[in-house]
């Protein structure tokens, strides 16, 4: 394993400490509960927003805390949901009179932790709602699973509800918007390589030199199928088709297009993928209204990418355009 790491057990804590040191005016780090929160939360007139889920997906979600997005993020260990108690403590810290919305990527562990935290918080008299995000089209057979997984499309939900909350919307309205965005957001990803969790020290799965995993999960969960490495054009076509056919998106739709890197793929390749996806959508009569290229939800150092589409209407477009100030920035 070649990583910048001291004791692997301290990986998450040291990352959060660095994040807080880099953003001394805007962020607070609470080591006891492994959480990052806005220095100015809670606010009387704003619904507070919390996102958890395992670590290793950065910038999701700890680097999305800030004005216009999350009030707090309480990550677990690498690829593990946070303890329910940490979520509960986070809710206590950010509880606002307007209520708290918990954003949860749809995984068994995360669901259980957030549901337990919601029960505990409501017993304390805090108004809490929980929204599950499940944009991953790779999981098709929902009878056999807890359903679709939440992956990079998560960003759009956070951004839209963040803007709505900042504008002063009440909890039900913020929830409505989050659910609406989630319902028109679809993602599919693929791995070129496996990722290496610091505590494991070796790749999480074997992926031969000539193979890719289509539909991979962001914790290295297997996807739809394993296939041979092909040209970027052919592979991107498969991702785009899977996403388009799922909602489905159709000719005349206006969309946000995100090409998300999984951690090990350089930004140059992501822009190349973006160009291919954009043109493939144009062939289908689908117009790109907003574009997003970079890392939004990663899987440690996994090489690979995902393609996300959001069907835009004026309301969603507006919310996505609102300003936000989060650690992921260039200056």
């Amino acid at each position, binding site marked *: 394993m070649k990583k910048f790491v001291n004791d692997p057990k301290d990986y998450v804590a040291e990352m959060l400490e660095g994040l807080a040191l880099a953003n001394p005016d805007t962020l607070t780090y609470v080591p006891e509960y492994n959480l990052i929160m806005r220095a100015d939360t809670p606010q009387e007139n704003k619904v507070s927003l919390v996102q958890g889920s*395992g670590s290793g997906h950065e910038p999701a979600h700890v680097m999305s805390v800030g004005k216009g997005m999350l009030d707090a993020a309480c990550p677990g260990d690498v690829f593990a949901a946070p303890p329910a108690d940490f979520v509960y403590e986070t809710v206590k810290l950010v509880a606002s009179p307007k209520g708290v919305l918990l954003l949860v990527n749809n995984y068994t562990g995360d669901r259980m932790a957030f549901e337990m935290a919601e029960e505990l918080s409501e017993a304390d008299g805090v108004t809490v709602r929980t929204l599950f995000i499940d944009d991953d089209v790779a999981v098709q057979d929902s009878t056999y699973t807890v359903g679709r997984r939440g992956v990079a499309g998560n960003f759009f939900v956070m951004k839209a509800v963040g803007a709505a909350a900042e504008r002063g919307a009440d909890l039900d309205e913020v929830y409505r918007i989050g659910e609406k965005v989630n319902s028109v957001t679809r993602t599919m990803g693929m791995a070129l390589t496996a990722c290496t969790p610091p505590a494991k020290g070796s790749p999480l799965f074997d992926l031969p030199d000539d193979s890719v995993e289509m539909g991979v999960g962001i914790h290295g969960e297997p996807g739809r199928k394993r296939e041979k490495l092909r040209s970027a054009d052919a592979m991107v076509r498969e991702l785009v088709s899977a996403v388009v056919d799922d909602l489905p998106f159709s000719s005349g739709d206006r969309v946000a297009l995100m090409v998300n890197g999984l951690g090990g793929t350089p930004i140059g390749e992501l822009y190349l993928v973006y160009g291919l996806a954009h043109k493939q959508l144009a062939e289908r009569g689908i117009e790109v209204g907003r574009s997003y290229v970079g890392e939004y939800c990663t899987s440690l150092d996994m090489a690979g990418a995902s393609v996300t589409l959001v069907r835009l209407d004026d309301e969603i477009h507006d919310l996505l355009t609102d300003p936000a100030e989060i650690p992921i920035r260039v200056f």
Partner: protein
Amino acid sequence: MDNERAFGDLDAVAGDGDFGYSLARGFEIVLSDWDALASDSPAEFLKKVALVISKRVGGTSGPLWGTAFLRAAGAVKDRQELNAADAVAMLRAAAEGIKARGKSDLGDKTLLDALIPMTDALEQRLEQRPAAAEPAVGEPAAGEPAPGGAELAALAATTARAAADATAPMRARRGRQSYTGERSIGSPDPGAVAIAVMAERVAAEWDVRE
């Protein structure tokens, strides 16, 4: 109660990065808090363990195992000394808790597929005795002797291992493995294997102690 080594063995299974680093860490925390967990009753001890796990352990394992310990505590809340029947009641309660928390059941290819058969086997073995204990004409009055701890532990271990092995051809419906669909077929469920390892460890300890 000397489960330290049993927990340590579990760590070896749990530490493979799939079944959950966080579970291993949770038991580490339990071990390091060992003195603070000292309690007046088994139920109180189990409740404290449940609390530590719920508070500090994340992943899928935290809520599942936390719930399991909490329900186990509930099953023996008036008892000062635990007998074999209490152990079965605890295991049964734990399994019911996991079912409820995990929205899962027998056949979903989870640890329940080792835990439930193991509990059933223990219960059956215990039930044989009172039945046999009713004096039957021409039979020895005491029926079969009450099974000893070592025998029960051995039974639990072999049943759990066989049940864990039997999960291999199943298709996962819960946990990470469920996403793989057909591909989940062929290898046993790590959670079920962990139950088997724990049971085997307890059986080995019992042998040494007797």
